[in-house]
């Protein structure tokens, strides 16, 4: 009785300001709730407008662009070499992968291939970056759902990877590790030994994460059957990366269209079955192990030789356009570059995996609870720097 009066008063108070109001199952009015842009579990500045029936989500709308810096426009006013550090600032938890995609795209455009040693260095660093990126994902995702310990574990271990980056190129996060045509730096003394030691250090740590979560009843209840996205929906929505693989589609650009030295690496593509949040968690955990496997092989078989191909000092690609993409930790990261034969790209289009994966949020949370929205945003593994560019 009291509840009804309150709602009636509400209506008097707000009037039609909230737009069209319809009665819902609970015989109450639809509620529009703003989540974000300043919300700890939106991983940055994402605003989700939720339409709710009690705790049930009827629909969502994402409001993005708070971090828009016009990276594509900047790309048109910088030379090809000058633009390389900018791409690190898109997906800032996986800067190495961004740089790899960009350098390879420009190499495709100027028809240059990086030397074998550079290809191996690229594989090692980008797999280390994949591990670091997945660790950030796991820590924050678990924190969103209420498990605090994994955050400390994952960030503690990620630190060791960042130390290797720092020793290699002087930077920890926005590394600018690669150059067009190869790498700027050769590996430092004892790099191979250190990376191998790092792999041995990491392996049991992944077990620790699993011990905390995999059979944890709260974790399983919060993730199993939540945010289901099947394979066909993934394809229709353009969703790639671990989200697609968790839906049972065995597709990985490292295997489908191998780049760098991936064609020489032996690894498996982990897949899930149900396409729910738990499967995506399992797929990423398995990917951590596969990344270690790739790093170990690459370190063992890294060839000697030059690290830089012959690239002209002043880059002037011929007139034409190309698209090149790589398997970034979050999905397909593509660069579509149009050259008009001048020093700057005529058009620099970046196909960010986070932007396109985020579009699936609405489909995944419809009919679920508000608390699941938090879990699903986490499981999509978005980085707003990349969504907004």
């Amino acid at each position: 009785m009291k509840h009804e009066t309150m709602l009636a008063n509400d209506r008097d108070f707000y009037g039609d300001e909230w737009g069209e109001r319809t009665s819902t199952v609970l015989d109450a009015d639809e509620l529009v709730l703003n989540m974000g842009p300043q919300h700890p579990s939106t991983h940055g500045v994402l605003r989700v407008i939720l339409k709710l029936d009690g705790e049930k989500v009827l629909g969502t709308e994402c409001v993005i662009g708070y971090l828009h810096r016009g990276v594509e426009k900047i790309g048109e006013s910088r030379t090809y070499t000058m633009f390389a550090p900018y791409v690190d600032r898109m997906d800032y938890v996986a800067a190495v992968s961004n740089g790899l995609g960009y350098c390879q795209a420009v190499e495709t455009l100027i028809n240059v291939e990086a030397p074998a040693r550079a290809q191996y260095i690229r594989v090692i660093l980008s797999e280390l970056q994949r591990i670091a990126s997945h660790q950030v994902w796991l820590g924050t995702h678990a924190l969103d759902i209420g498990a605090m310990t994994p955050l400390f574990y994952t960030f503690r271990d990620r630190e060791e990877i960042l130390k290797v980056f720092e020793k290699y190129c002087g930077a920890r996060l926005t590394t600018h590790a690669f150059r067009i045509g190869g790498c700027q730096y050769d590996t430092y003394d004892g790099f191979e030994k250190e990376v191998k030691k790092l792999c041995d250090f990491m392996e049991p740590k992944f077990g620790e994460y699993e011990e905390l979560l995999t059979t944890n009843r709260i974790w399983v209840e919060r993730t199993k059957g939540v945010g289901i996205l099947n394979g066909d929906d993934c394809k229709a929505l353009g969703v790639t990366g671990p989200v697609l693989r968790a839906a049972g589609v065995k597709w990985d650009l490292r295997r489908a269209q191998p780049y760098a030295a991936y064609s020489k690496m032996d690894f498996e593509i982990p897949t899930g079955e149900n396409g729910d949040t738990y499967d995506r968690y399992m797929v990423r955990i398995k990917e951590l192990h596969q990344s270690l496997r790739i790093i170990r092989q690459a370190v063992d078989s890294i060839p000697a030789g030059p690290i830089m191909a012959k690239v002209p000092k002043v880059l002037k690609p011929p007139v034409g356009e190309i698209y090149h993409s790589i398997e970034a930790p979050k999905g397909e990261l593509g660069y579509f570059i149009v050259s008009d034969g001048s020093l700057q790209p005529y058009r620099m289009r970046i196909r960010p995996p986070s932007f396109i994966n985020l579009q699936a949020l609405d489909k995944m949370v419809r009919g679920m609870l508000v608390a699941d929205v938090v879990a699903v945003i986490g499981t999509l593994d978005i980085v707003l720097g990349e969504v907004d560019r």
Partner: protein
Amino acid sequence: MPDESKANSTPPPAGKQSNANVAAEVKVSSPNPPQSSPNPEAKPVAAAPAAPKPAAPASAAAVPAKAAVPPKPAGPTPQPWDNEFLQRLKKVYGSGIREASTYLGQNYLVADQSIVNEILSAYRDDEGFDYLVDLTAVHYPKREKLEFDVVYILYSFAKNTRVRVKTQIADGAVLPSAVDIWPTANWLEREIFDMFGIRFEGHPDLKRILLPDGWQGYPLRKDYGILQQDQAWVQSNLGIESGQ
């Protein structure tokens, strides 16, 4: 800073200027300004609207570009591309398929804007291109009529190949939306609308996505300067003189 933003109040030259000062000294050695070199896909539209063989004008267009820049070694040129499915498309649409080429191993075809959605549907339904990788646009203000390229990048999981479908439209023209073919197109079309001002007919909710709703201007057009912004919006919404 202040003179930079002042220079931007006159949009078209300012954009070029800021482009130029990045590499001003190197530019002196290369007299040809950007966009002036003939574009391989711009040619067939102007020269051969009815010719079913676009390959010849395309390679012819690339030759003067090489001649204009003598020190550069001969770059790759688009090669004609053909297969059974393309033959079928050509039979149905005739000169609607303006060009089909391969550049550096990547296939693309240029279709007339009136048939682009039919071609996209055909690619998805008949050829199994079930994944729209990306949808974007490129602005060519130097072109006479068809100022924009709209580029659809498609991928087939079964065949593991990509293809680019391109179409050219004029400023103010409306393209049919591809949301019904691939839901992915929803946000991508909104982004194109936001950045280029191209409208898509039949889009469920065509509005700006990255920029604020009230923003004036389309930043990825070539006449929009790199430092240019909607001063009126900045002043009324952020309460500051300039965002620079």
